[in-house]
Structures are given as C-alpha cells and as structure tokens.
C-alpha cells in the first residue's frame, strides 16, 4: 500500500487526516513543520505528499513544494488550503504553485480519499 506524508502544523488536522487515510489502508508519516516535512520526504520517499499551505509563515507550504520540485521530486502533492480563497488569494496550479490538487479545510474524509486515490492512479499510469 502507498505511503503518504502529511505536513501540517495543526496536530488535530494531522491526527484526523492520518486516521482517515489509515482507515483506507494507507501508510502514513507526519511532520508538523516545513523542516521536518522536508526531512521525512527525503528520508522515507513517500508516494504522495499532503502539504498545508500556511504553517510557521503564511506561504511556507508553497516554498516547500517549490523546493521539492527543484530537487527533482515529482511525486504528487495535494495541498491543504484554508482561507486563501475566501480572502481573494485565489491560486491554482502554476509554476509558483507546483502542486497537483487542492483540498479546502475543513477536510471531508470522502473528498480527501477520492483525491488521494485519483492522484495515486495517475502516478501509476505515468
């Protein structure tokens, strides 16, 4: 079964997301800040990354995603967003935001699982 890394500074979100994915049989590793997130991705080589957009800084999720891509890590990234859209910071996939899909908080287990499944399928095809 695929290994998923979740990087989010909110322990409750980490816990809830892990539980949902574990219940579907995925293996999960977590980090609660960008530095540890970088380390677990480099060390454990997961199949998919779930990344919060706003951690210690309002945009450090973006930077981490850019860093992964720069270093040739091509695995799918699913980005957690919160208020960005509501306050007019509407962004989509782009060079600046090199992620594959978004999940808006609060997280619906069904949506999360669906998006993870479809991203992993695309990865297999590739």
């Amino acid at each position: 079964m695929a290994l998923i890394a979740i990087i989010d500074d909110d322990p409750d979100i980490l816990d809830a997301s892990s539980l949902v994915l574990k219940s579907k049989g995925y293996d999960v590793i977590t980090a609660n800040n960008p530095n540890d997130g970088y380390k677990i991705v480099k060390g454990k080589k997961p199949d998919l990354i779930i990344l919060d957009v706003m951690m210690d800084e309002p945009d450090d999720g973006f930077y981490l995603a850019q860093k992964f891509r720069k270093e040739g890590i091509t695995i799918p990234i699913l980005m957690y967003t919160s208020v960005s859209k509501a306050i007019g910071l509407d962004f989509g996939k782009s060079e600046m935001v090199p992620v594959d899909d978004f999940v808006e908080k609060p997280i619906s287990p069904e949506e999360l699982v669906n998006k993870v499944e479809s991203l992993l399928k695309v990865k297999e095809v590739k």
Partner: protein
Amino acid sequence: MNNFKGNILIVDDEKGLRLGTKRLLEEEGYNVTAAENGTEGLQFGTITDFDVAVIDLKMPDIDGLEVLKEIKSIHPNTVCFIATAFASYETAIQATRIGAFGYIPKPFSPEELIYQVEQGLKQRKLILDAHRLELEREKNLLELANEKSRLNAIIKSISEGIIIINTNGDLAYYNYAAIKLLNINNIQIGEKILDKLPVHVTDIVNKIFQSDKIMLKSYTTEFSLHADNELFLEAACTPIPNPDGSLAGVVIILSNITGYKRIEIIKNQFVSMVAHELKTPLAAVQGFLNIIMDQSIKLSPEKQHDYIQRSTIRLKSLTDLVNDLLDISRFEMKTKEREIFEVHLEEIICSTIQMLELELNKKGITVEKNIEINLPFIKADINEITRMVTNLLSNAIKYNKDKGKIFIDISSSKNYVELKVRDTGIGLKPDEKQKLFSEFYRAKNDMTRGISGTGLGLSIVKRIVDSYFGLIEVESEYGVGTTFLIKLPINPN
C-alpha cells in the same frame, strides 16, 4: 436726528433782514443759525456742516466771497448762496467759480427765498447721495479686491490640488498643490493640458466633454502615479455649467489618499488574519466531526472520546480568541466607560496568581514576589489592570520551562509604579522581540510548538498600557528567559 427740514446758515450784517429771514425760514420748518457779520459767519460755517448757507456779499468786516470760500474749503458739500443788492454779472461769475450754487438778488420776496433754499436743499441731497454712492462704490471695490485675493490665497494654500479646464482643453486655473501632486512642471494658464494629466483623469474629462447632457455631479477615480504605489490620488471631476446650461469646463479636485489606502491595506490584512485564526480551530473541529459521522471509518469509543475532547479544547480556544477580539474592539471603539478607582497592584497580582494556581502547579513553576512596602495606589480601571496582569503572568507560565520560576518586582517612583515580570522560559530571538506586540504574532519555533494562544494577549497588554500613557519594554535572551517592564502613571490625568 431732528425733525427740521434742514440746517440753514444766514450771514447778514443787516439786522432786520437777518432776523426776518431767520423767522421766515423757521416758520417753514428749518433750523436756522444767524451770523451778524462775516467773522461770525465764517466761524459758524466752518464748524458746522450746514445744508444751505445764504451769505450777504457786502459786509463791513469780511467779504461774503471770502466767507464762501472758507466754508467751501472746509465743507464742500454745504450749498451756498450769495445774496446781494449789488448784483453784477462779474460777481455772479466769481461767486459761482469759487463754489456758490446760486445768486439771490436783494431785495428778495419770501417766496423767492424759500424757493431758492428748497432748490439748495435738493442740491445738497443730490450731492450727499452722490457722495454716499461714491463711498459705497469704493468700499465695494475694495471688498471685491479683498475677497478675490482672499479666495486666491485660500485656493492656493489648500492641500487639495485644483485644476480647471475649459471646453477647449485649455488650462484655466490651477493651484500649487495640483502640480505638486501630479508632479508636472512648466504648465501655464491657457495651454493645452489634457495630455499632461494622468490618463485616468483625461478619460473622465473627455467623457464629460463628449456627453450631450451636463450632469451636475462629480466623477471620481483613484489611481497611483508611482509604480511602487507610494502615492495614491483621488481625482473628482465636476462639470462647470454656463448660465445658459452649456458646458463651460471641468474642475478637477485632486486629493492625496495614500493614508486611507494604507489603513485599508492594514484593515484587509487584519481581516485576513482574523479569518484565518477563526477558521483554523473550526476546521479542526469540523474535521473530527466529519470522521465521527463517517460510516465508512471505524472509530473506537476511546478514539471517539479523544476527538470530542480535543474538539472541546479547540472550541474553548476559539471562544478565547473571540473574547480577545472583542476586548480589542472595545479598546478601539472606546465603547466601554472606564471605571477609574484607586487600584492596588499588589492585590491584583496576588489574586491573579491564585487564579492561575492550577497552571502553575501543572508545570511546577514557583513565583517570587518582591513588592515595595507602602506601594502607592494607581488610578485605573481594575478590570483592565487585572487583564494586563493576567495576560503577562499566563505568558510567563506558558512560555516557561517545567519547574521554572517567575519573579515579580513592584516598585514606585514619584509619578510611576513599575512592574517587572521575569520568567526563566524559552526567551525570544531578536526578530521575534520586534513583532511581539502586533496582533496575531506568535513566536513560532521548535520550542513554542504545542503552546496554544490567540496571538492577541500582548497586543491587548500594550493597548492597556498605552491607554494609561504608560510604558512597556521587553528584555529577553533566547533560551534563558524574558522580562517585561511596565511603568504606569500613579495618576494618568
């Protein structure tokens, strides 16, 4: 004012004639002064501005023409007649040349005299009216000139830029603020100006020129002249109509709205931050509830209980946040009346420590107090000072190490009470220290992870201290501890 028809001076050395004339004119309703010779006539006539003077030509002391001349030189508006039995063409000319209005040959009949005096009075009235009108006209002209220069001075000195353009696009008027705000040089009244104005303004002016009907309202636009957005301007363009309703031109008022824009940006940032801070705990709670409700996820009763408990904690923090926001809003809007009484800081410190005992014991933190004996009261609202102390002490607990210490020193000087709260906690990095009092700022590093807070506590403390004209300072060493120093005036008024 009296009720006489006029003030008349009679100068005649012939007593009978003089008194007869006086009585005659008095009966007609005039106020008559009679002089019995030239000297007296000259004296009376130069002291009082008579309406009409009737002067005998031949008098033993001073000649009538001489009297006339003197009176005229002092009171040019006194209408003078020369009366004489020796009427001759030459004296008549001479008399009128030096200012006599008429010539009354002697002997004269009462009717003749009355007629002449009436004519004289009419003349006097005309002269006075003309004189008054002349004065009024001069005064009006002077006022107009004053008004114009005053208006000019006002327009030139106001900070809003003013530009007036006629329908040909020629510059009709401008003030210094306009060229300064638009940063344009070398413009002159009468020259084509539209090309030199920002395109936002030109567009509006052209639209006004092209529309068939003049709408008497302002059309406004906001724009920034510099790429780095350091100057925001607002231009209000208003059509100026001719009296016949056609378009005469456009007046453009330019205002510097950079300050408002800056406030708007700060406000938007604040709203974004509030939205984020409110949504984060909600998202966590919603996430837990979604899992609990999801039939496809099997959850042990222990896990379910754990999630409900954690949701409760997040909701509690949300409530704290809303309360902090309300406190800040109360401060900003000054909606709550302060209740200023004598407050004893030591009592507040002691009751706050008691309130926080549970948290203190949880981390095994001890408090050492060093409080000046006979500490003076301060005049303040007890709720605000309690809030300030609570926020400071709960930070000193939250960011302290396990089994750490808190030192509280209170002393006083002539005008101030000084409170020092020192902890043996994780301390602050220099860049963290700078942002410490701003809303929602929370030092985020390996040591603060897991410590919850709204990010508003110290910003509220600062607002309270500032509102009492006090002083707050922070000293800190990363990994060693932090000291807050607060000086509050004993009597803020």
